[in-house]
């Protein structure tokens, strides 16, 4: 009995000493960023991480979580920020709830788009025509997480365009793309709640249905949201996140690299930072 206890203590000491050695590599401090595993958010967050690590010398931890968790963690100050706040529509409910606990640093990419998406072989072009073809779509609009703003907007659209005989199915981003993939494989008609930039547009030929009544709004922006008090604790990080802004084209470049088989997303982000020194310098003014 005594021998065994001694062994355990020895092992524990070994663990602790080994890990102490690995844990304290020199760095300016830690920055935690939450994101959701959407391709746009992954690309953006990795580029921010690359700048913070390579150019500013911070140690960055990126946490892939669910959208609600990302907002809740930023509001409670558990993470320093996030680069995936879809406003004004998609994340409206989260923003309303946590508005007083977070700081909105404005858009990092403008001109994202949300709406109803169909494969290009579907012969209708407007949401107004959906009702007349309800049967061709098996009476379903394939949706995503019930909390997303795009779902509420879709319900509004069903009322506004008086789409009879179609119901909005709740699910998640993953079930939506899976249903889309399956329908395209069998050349079936399908309509989903969609947003761009998103990898589905790279993989299949898709189009947004026109929205003559403008229910889904003109366009979405992706915002950088940080916790309250970041500008006091880490002014340098705050300034960078505040300046960080790129175009959809630049973002889609990185997203395309990420789609290559066996891609290492962080390596791609580092490559982007290396290839665009002037842009990065402008973020670090």
């Amino acid at each position, binding site marked *: 009995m005594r021998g065994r206890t001694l062994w355990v203590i020895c092992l524990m000491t070994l663990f602790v000493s080994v*890990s102490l050695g690995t844990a304290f590599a020199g760095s300016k401090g830690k920055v*935690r960023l939450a994101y959701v595993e959407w391709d746009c958010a992954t690309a953006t967050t990795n580029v921010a991480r690359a700048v913070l690590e390579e150019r500013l010398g911070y140690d960055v931890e990126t946490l892939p*979580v669910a959208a609600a968790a990302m907002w809740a963690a930023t509001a409670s100050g*558990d993470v320093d920020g996030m680069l995936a706040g879809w406003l004004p529509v998609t994340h409206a409910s989260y923003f309303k709830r946590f508005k007083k606990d977070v700081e909105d640093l404005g858009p990092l990419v403008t001109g994202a788009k949300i709406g109803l998406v169909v494969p290009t072989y579907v012969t209708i072009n407007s949401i107004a025509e959906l009702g007349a073809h309800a049967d061709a779509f098996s009476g379903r609009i394939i949706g995503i997480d019930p909390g997303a703003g795009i779902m509420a907007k879709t319900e509004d659209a069903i009322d506004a365009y008086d789409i009879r005989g179609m119901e909005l199915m709740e699910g998640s981003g993953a079930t939506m*793309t899976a249903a889309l*993939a399956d329908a395209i494989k069998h050349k079936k008609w399908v309509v989903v709640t969609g947003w761009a930039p998103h990898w589905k547009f790279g993989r299949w030929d898709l189009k947004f249905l026109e929205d003559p009544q403008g229910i889904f709004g003109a366009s979405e922006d992706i915002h950088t949201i940080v916790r309250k008090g970041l500008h006091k604790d880490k002014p340098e990080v705050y300034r960078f996140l505040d300046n960080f802004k790129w175009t959809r084209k630049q973002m889609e470049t990185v997203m395309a690299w990420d789609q290559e088989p066996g891609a290492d997303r962080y390596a791609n982000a580092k490559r982007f930072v290396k290839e665009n020194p002037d842009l990065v310098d402008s973020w670090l003014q």
Partner: protein
Amino acid sequence: MHIPRIPLGDGIESILDFLVEHFSFATKSFSVVTEKGLSWLESGMKFLPPWLFIVLVAGLVWYLSKRNRGLTIFTIAGLLLIWNLGLWSATVSTIALVVVATCIAILIGVPLGIGAALSHVMYRITMPILDFMQTMPAFVYLIPAIPFFGLGKVSAIFSTVIFSMPPAIRLTCLGIKQVPMELNECAEAFGSSRWQKLVKLQLPLATPTIMAGINQTVMLALSMVVIASMIGAKGLGGEVWKAIQRLQPGRGFEAGLGIVIVAIILDRVLQKIGGSSTSS
């Protein structure tokens, strides 16, 4: 007759806000300590080269399973497959998470089970709470846990413990209650104190049942890893979740297989320990 709607949800939200306001500093500091311990464990495990780790685990399985050759071979083959699929560090982090969560669940659960077996009042209080813990969907307390334990592994451990602790409590309680009356009376007749009776008679006899409970706890902890990855637990669950979101069923299946392999190894080893252990 008009009965107004009971504002249950609002009440719970204001209780939560109050708790966050006044107690989150305590849970936060607990969180920091746990996080540190966990990351030490993890980096310690990752510090070993995979082949050495596999050899060590295989040796441990060989010893614990009383030289069961088939299980040892399965362990080596399974871990080599995980390594080959490039899931090594995810697996190590999942093992660390499950081990820590299970340890906490056992440290709380077994004493509670003993208490519930020995005291009727405690039994009456504990059982309905256990029903809650086992059936309340994890998603309900996943997000509210963030202000208390932060994003990441500690929140994951918290929800895993809640979900996986009940069998440890229930089966500990059951095992002690199943000790035959005659033996209890016998021990009392020879003048043993309550403590002696517990340690020398009831616990040894209840050990197989308690081990079955611990086994269940480990399995339930493993079944939580994908849900826990929604709040940043990473590991194998995170790999599954990433694959699901990117619509890569093959990759999801690989990571799922990794979870299965870890589960089988832990399950068989624990069964071997529990099945043949008598009072030592």
